[in-house]
């Protein structure tokens, strides 16, 4: 089956990464400002206003679009930084805003009606009623689906909703319903939903103890990796814990999503865009993953088999999964 290529939406945490994504064939680059208004608020990462202006010029000259994520939930009594982020992104010429907070969606619709509004995965909207509501109330034109649906469920959803869908294709697995996970808040007092960061670096420690690397988050030991065993992120959802006398992964093993093998099915399911996760990753990741997915998306659009992408070295725990897209456990 051939068809319109899926739109390839790629991450950038720095201007260098933005250029790498554009040069590697991204249709769209998504990014955020250097503060708590976006869900990748990592130290040293993200864009100043002048960097966004330069990035927009670089991308637009090359036919690539920029979406700006303002996708955390505004702090009670202090919406200023979130309003400024929306205003600045729209005024600088962002091609779309990625939003989750209904107050902010309303603000963006009233103040910048001409700028496209996409619903962030942080809003965790995954059923026709919720999505229709976001469309009717805030003029949302696209919804980024949480990583909890099968391809069949996505196909069924797409015929019932009036907006485009974007799905995750590659990168870190957030195994809970996004926007609702409180594991990081429980362990550190800071969460992706409110502070833009899961398992903040300020609370992470690694220690080499003999032949083992121990990772800790706040007061919790998350994992111990013997020498030579591939490592994973220090998030509670990827922790290896003792239960019933056995050490094992309770929620999810360290692994990354790779949906390249189901691209034709996602196209057939009516998906409009593919999102690559990883604004916190380096230029080398962006260049390699975006180029590989460019090949994959073009092959799928021609109706050719999707070639193996060889991205194993980029994955957490050096393992990949198709995640919920092909899940058989429910």
């Amino acid at each position: 089956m051939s068809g319109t290529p899926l739109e390839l939406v790629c991450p950038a945490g720095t201007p260098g990464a933005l250029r790498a994504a554009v040069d590697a064939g991204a249709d769209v680059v998504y990014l955020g400002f250097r503060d708590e208004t976006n869900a990748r608020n990592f130290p040293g990462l993200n864009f100043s206003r002048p960097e966004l202006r330069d990035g927009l010029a670089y991308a637009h000259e090359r036919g690539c679009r920029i979406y700006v994520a303002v996708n955390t939930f505004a702090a009670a009594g202090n919406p200023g930084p979130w309003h400024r982020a929306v205003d600045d992104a729209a005024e600088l010429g962002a091609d779309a805003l990625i939003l989750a907070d209904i107050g902010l969606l309303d603000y963006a619709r009233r103040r910048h009606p001409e700028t496209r509004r996409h619903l962030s995965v942080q809003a965790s909207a995954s059923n026709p009623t919720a999505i229709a509501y976001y469309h009717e109330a805030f003029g949302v034109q696209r919804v980024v689906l949480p990583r909890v649906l099968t391809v069949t469920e996505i196909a069924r959803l797409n015929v019932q909703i009036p907006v485009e869908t974007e799905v995750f294709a590659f990168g870190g697995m957030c195994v809970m319903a996004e926007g609702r996970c409180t594991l990081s808040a429980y362990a550190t007092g800071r969460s992706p939903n409110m502070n833009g960061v899961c398992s903040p670096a300020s609370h992470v420690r690694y220690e080499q103890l003999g032949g083992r690397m121990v990772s800790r988050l706040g007061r919790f030991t998350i994992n111990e990796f013997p020498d030579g065993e591939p490592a994973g992120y220090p998030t509670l959802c990827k922790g290896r814990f003792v239960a019933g006398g056995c050490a094992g992964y309770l929620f999810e093993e360290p692994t990354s999503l790779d949906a390249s093998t189901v691209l034709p099915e996602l196209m057939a399911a009516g998906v409009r865009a593919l999102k690559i996760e990883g604004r916190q990753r380096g230029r080398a990741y962006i260049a390699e993953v975006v180029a590989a997915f460019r090949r994959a998306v073009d092959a799928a659009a021609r109706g050719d088999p999707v070639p193996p992408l060889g991205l194993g070295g980029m994955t957490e725990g050096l393992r990949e999964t198709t995640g919920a897209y092909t899940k058989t456990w429910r």
Partner: protein
Amino acid sequence: MVYRWPEVAGGVNHRADAPVTNEPNRGTPSLSPVLLAGFALRPLPLVLLQPALDLAMTLMRRRHSDVFERLDTLENASFLIDPVDLPFCFTLRLGPPAPRLSVVGNADDMESPSAVLRGPLLVLIRLLEGRMDGDAAFFSRDLAVEGDMEAVLTLRNAVDSGGIDLAEDLLSLFGPLNGPARRAFGAAEALFARAERDLETVRAAFVAPVDGRCDAQTARLRDLEDDLADLRTGMPRANAAGKRAARPGTARP
């Protein structure tokens, strides 16, 4: 391995401001041209390297001012950068008057660094130039980090954003007359790549018999694990044997 959840009452100090122990745990470096060059450099007084490091930092600050702007928030952070295949380490201090890169003979010559980054020299250079992804190097265990992770991430993100190219940065010193230097650099690079390939062949020849024994041991271990799992679930032995035979690469030696 023992894991505890949650380890709230444990005796380990996990606070972010806990002192970093840069007690060397370098593992065994691979046989590489860098390792051999390190042996050759060992008799040289380290102080001879300092002018070259000062020059490198001056160049970096001139050509990549954006990197240093992103590091502004770190103020007085200090890093121990430990190339495991060299007989010395680097220290990077960001405090005023200006960031300074130095060399020390041992990891514990630096008192309380904010963080330690440890890996083979080529991995560290690839990270510096943004040719390797930091998370991927961490997942594969090529890079080990300890200490203040906020400082590590800030450094990683700043450096990655900068488009640093060590060769180009050094060649810029020669201005418009950099042709011969560029050719010499190209030749040195080719020589290095060839030495790396040759040493890999030597290494493979040495470890081939051990590798074979390891594979056999691994297969045997997997069989034993299967047997144990079968015993736990009470699966009949015949099925277990059938399952083993069906799986490639697990035949006993």
